[in-house]
């Protein structure tokens, strides 16, 4: 899948004019990108304190087309193009949040977010504690993560696990169109900083968006497919691959349960452990590097909390320990693929 181009955006723009209001509850076909946009539109319509700020979110329509059309709808004060100054505009989001606003800051990719790491870690995540509870930071930061689009080593990494290491942050990874649509409102209602990671390969994913049922709480993992023989635990851009692997396993007579973490911090131990206790086997699929990864954390928690329920050692399917390369074959070889997940699950089942 390639990064969005202008034609994509024009096409999607036409397709969605029908659901302009952003609050339409009727089931309709949409994309992950449009679902994110609907969520933004709804937030901007319902709360005057909300504004969107980031590089090229306005006139350009968003690096990946998520905010296309919002400038025309809400004006330059609330759809605010910034200079290429990640630290300044993330920090400005923190300050504005302290002063009563509900900013949504978009960072183009997780690799660029490193330029704002000081603000995210030293200010957003710590101000509440350092001030003895006086200064909550109700800020939402959205950014793209992940590989699979031949964007090479400075646009492809999966560093959300680093952020999940940090107390004081809530870290979300919407993997479905429903979560793309429904995670933003509770994230904005959270009094603390929330980071939302959108995997770059998901923007063009399309599907039916049903009426908003009672959305899952933000810190709850979701069972995307039930099964009895092995639990496949994943999140974000690896969910479609893991579901495809579960299909293949089913064809081979292995019943795989798929857990979508949704929230990377806090982790929903209950859902993970309950599933593993039922299936007795676990495979963790994480596009980040294996060493020091979220997959390592999930594996450790299973070891700590479900050791005696396991019939096989926990397996991990992660990216190769290499900066993500450009060439198609090399990139594919570096990332977890359906076949890798199937192999790991088969080994676990024995």
């Amino acid at each position: 899948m390639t990064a969005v181009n202008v034609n994509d955006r024009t096409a999607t723009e036409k397709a969605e004019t029908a659901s302009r209001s952003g609050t339409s509850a009727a089931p309709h076909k949409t994309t992950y990108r449009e679902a994110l946009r609907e969520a933004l539109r709804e937030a901007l319509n319902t709360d005057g304190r909300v504004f969107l700020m980031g590089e090229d979110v306005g006139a350009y329509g968003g690096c990946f087309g998520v905010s296309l059309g919002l400038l025309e709808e809400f004006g330059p004060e609330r759809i605010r193009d910034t200079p290429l100054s990640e630290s300044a505009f993330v920090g400005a989001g923190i300050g504005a949040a302290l002063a009563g606003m509900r900013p949504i800051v978009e960072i183009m990719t997780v690799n660029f977010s490193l330029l704002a790491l000081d603000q995210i870690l030293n200010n957003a995540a710590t101000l509440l504690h350092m001030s003895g509870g006086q200064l909550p930071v109700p800020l939402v930061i959205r950014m793209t993560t992940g590989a699979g689009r031949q964007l090479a080593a400075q646009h492809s990494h999966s560093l959300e696990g680093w952020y999940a290491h940090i107390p004081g942050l809530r870290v979300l990874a919407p993997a479905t169109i429903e979560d793309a649509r429904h995670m933003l409102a509770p994230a904005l209602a959270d009094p603390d900083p929330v980071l939302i990671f959108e995997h770059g390969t998901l923007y063009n994913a399309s599907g039916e968006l049903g009426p908003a049922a009672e959305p899952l709480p933000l810190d709850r993992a979701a069972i995307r497919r039930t099964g009895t023989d092995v639990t496949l635990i994943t999140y974000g851009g690896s969910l479609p691959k893991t579901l495809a692997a579960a299909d293949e396993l089913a064809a081979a007579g292995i019943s795989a349960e798929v857990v979508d973490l949704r929230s990377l911090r806090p982790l929903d131990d209950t859902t993970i452990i309950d599933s593993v206790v039922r299936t007795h086997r676990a495979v963790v699929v994480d596009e980040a590097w294996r060493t020091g990864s979220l997959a390592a954390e999930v594996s450790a928690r299973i070891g700590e909390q479900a050791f005696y329920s396991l019939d096989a050692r926990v397996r991990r399917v992660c990216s190769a320990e290499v900066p993500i390369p450009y060439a198609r074959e090399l990139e594919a070889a570096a990332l977890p693929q359906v076949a890798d997940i199937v192999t790991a699950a088969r080994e676990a089942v024995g």
Partner: protein
Amino acid sequence: MTTKRTDRAASATNRRGTARKATAEHRQKLLESMLRIRRFEERSVELYSAARIRGFVHLYVGEEAVAVGVNEALTEDDAIVSTYREHGHALARGLTSEAVMAEMFGKVTGCSHGRGGSMHLFDASRRFYGGNAIVGGGLPLAAGLALADRMNGRCRVTCCFFGDGAVAEGEFHETANLAALWGLPLLLVCENNQYAMGTALDRAQAETDLALRASSYGMVAWAVDGMDVEAVERAALRATEAIRSGSGPHFLELRTYRFRAHSMYDPDRYRDKDEIERWRKRDPVVTFADRLRREHSLPTARLRDIENRVGAEIDHAVEAADLAAAEPVEDLLLHVTSGVGETRKEEEARL
């Protein structure tokens, strides 16, 4: 909105403006505020030496005129973002000696409930946003506070203190550009004390005229004598009046000097003793007291009263901090998130 802003700015000028008469009473208030900081810092040294307070402690001795002079130009609706050398900013802002001292003792009555210590003093009720120990790290946050005011049409100023060292940081340049580009109501106060920790300005920065560099972003920038509290006050008032009337961010370079080492850990090997002595002759507290006496604004008895009052206040602060309860260890995980002890529940679940 512009009209309203102008009206409010005009009334602010009448109330606090540059034309304000420097009455003896007002000047004595400035002196008292500087003396409070000086005596507080001297007591901090004693307490640190006696191991009653720990961590990094950065003293403001020598720079008192900056905090006190700038604060005179701010109203209680304005905001302050500060640095790790912020005892002076906090006290000038009106945080009590008791709350700041208790914080350094790590007590529950401290202005950050013992979570912050010397480098992270906070008081949301006074719009005092800390206490930032990453050089330059407070600047973007200050721009955001100012942005929120502008978006809401509030006639308020956000004042951000930082040192000469911060002008070498990217966060300074990103923020200066953003603030000027968006015309934010931001007062950038650079306390140029000539050293970034142990590195002299001209050993670290190719262009040492900091006001000149700030002006390259299209904002008004002045260099001011930071050892003269009245000069600082006048400059800050001029700047805040301009900011309130909508003319965007202003930069003040206040040339000052710290008489003591960078922190309590610093053996101060990098400065010439003669240099320190030269600056000590310009001590902002001593020279201002002398000026007031010369100009018959400070009877001897009055100075004694001020000294006694400040001394008693700090004695009381130390006593109260000593007696205050420690923050309970069971509350360790409070204030990590605003949720009802979410992290604690997580931890408990794991155990």
